[in-house]
């Protein structure tokens, strides 16, 4: 057994151990923190699968943004756990549930072991058509060209989620802002970071989005990094979020999918059809759409994390 194999096995054990711990953790808050650690470990597994784009996304979204969301929720829900006695399950039910789950996992594990190697793949098809997109990163080509429809609709999913979250506001809070109020006096390390990090983060985010055409990275990962900067600034209470009825905010929210749709429709007239790019200018068009998507993602993710508007709009306190 080589060192790398031992490390792989160690990583798998660690991932499963942390996952089991988040289920068993006594404290809700501890479970949420465990989930963040789990997400980071999982992105290492993705690195080992040679899926760097997924690893970046998992680290940014699966662990990072989801983690902030879950930890914030766990803090606000402190004291709601453990549940009432009426919701405690009998041991027999637990055993039955465990048996069922072992059976499911067993069937899947058998499927994994029997899987053909090499398995069926679309990699040659992607390789054959990659040149037509002008891109170097095959994953970006799938996301932005071959399966562009999925990607466009995924942005619509995000917008619907924002509308869903906003719809949970109290009626009198509509038109107000979400999240904590900004502080009058800024001090402490968080404020310091909140003022220092964003310029660096923005540069790195633009870089990630830009190189995504040819290397691991892309609109989503870049947008997520920008979103993280926005969240740090909001959480450090340096600025407050914009009110939900601001027109510019709405425009930024829909910019990504709207530009995707617009260029997609132009494809009817000047290319092979909806979501087709004209020969030769596919790459600049894709980068153009991605720029708008980065903007939308950077707006959507923090809005989903800070939740519905929750107070009448006020000036600086």
């Amino acid at each position, binding site marked *: 057994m080589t060192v790398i194999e031992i490390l792989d096995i160690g990583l798998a054990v660690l991932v499963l151990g942390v996952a089991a711990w988040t289920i068993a953790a006594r404290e809700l808050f501890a479970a949420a923190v465990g989930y963040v650690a789990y997400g980071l470990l*999982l992105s290492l597994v993705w690195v080992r699968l040679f*899926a760097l784009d*997924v690893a970046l996304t998992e680290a940014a979204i699966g662990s990072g943004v989801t983690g902030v969301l879950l930890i914030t929720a766990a803090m606000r829900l402190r004291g709601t756990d453990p549940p009432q006695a009426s919701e405690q399950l009998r041991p027999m039910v637990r055993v039955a549930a465990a048996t069922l*789950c072992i059976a499911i996992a067993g069937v899947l594990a058998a499927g994994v072991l029997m899987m053909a190697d090499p398995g069926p793949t679309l990699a*040659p098809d992607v390789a054959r058509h990659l040149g037509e997109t002008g891109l170097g990163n095959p994953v970006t080509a799938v996301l932005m060209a071959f399966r562009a429809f999925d990607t466009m609709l995924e942005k619509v999913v995000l917008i619907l*989620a924002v509308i*869903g979250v906003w719809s949970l506001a109290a009626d009198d809070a509509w038109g107000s802002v979400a999240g904590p109020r900004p502080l009058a006096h800024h001090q402490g390390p968080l404020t310091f970071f909140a003022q220092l990090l964003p310029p660096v983060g923005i540069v790195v985010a633009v870089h990630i989005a830009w190189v995504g055409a040819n290397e691991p990275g892309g609109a989503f990962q870049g947008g997520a990094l920008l979103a993280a900067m926005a969240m740090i600034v909001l959480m450090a209470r340096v600025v407050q979020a914009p009110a939900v009825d601001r027109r510019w905010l709405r425009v930024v929210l829909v910019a990504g999918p709207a530009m995707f749709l617009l260029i997609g429709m132009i494809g009817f007239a000047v290319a092979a059809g909806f979501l087709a790019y004209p020969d030769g200018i596919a790459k600049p068009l894709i980068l153009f759409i991605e720029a708008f998507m980065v903007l939308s993602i950077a707006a959507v993710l923090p809005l989903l994390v800070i939740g519905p508007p929750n107070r009448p709009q006020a000036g600086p306190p």
Partner: protein
Amino acid sequence: MTAATLAGLTGAALVGLGVYGLLVLAHPLRKLLCFNLLGSGVFLMFGILARKGGAAGFAADPVPQALVITGIVVAFSATALAVALLLRLFETSGTVTLNPDEQRPE
């Protein structure tokens, strides 16, 4: 055993763990955590497909990788919506129980 097979087995175990948690844990936030465990297990199944489909100069099939990226974003949106619902429920009712009152006759 290759890293891919190991990741696939990890995914299978995560699916089992996630379903177990969803079945036995009552707190909605814990259910949501388990939904995310389950989801990432499913994504790892795509991951092993991608790795075993490495061909034509790519270490892994790009199509399942792209699907997972879309999937992660969708799972995050779902989590955000559910958390918002849960917090609003707690805010308005002071509890987080999912037992509906409608099932009982009035």
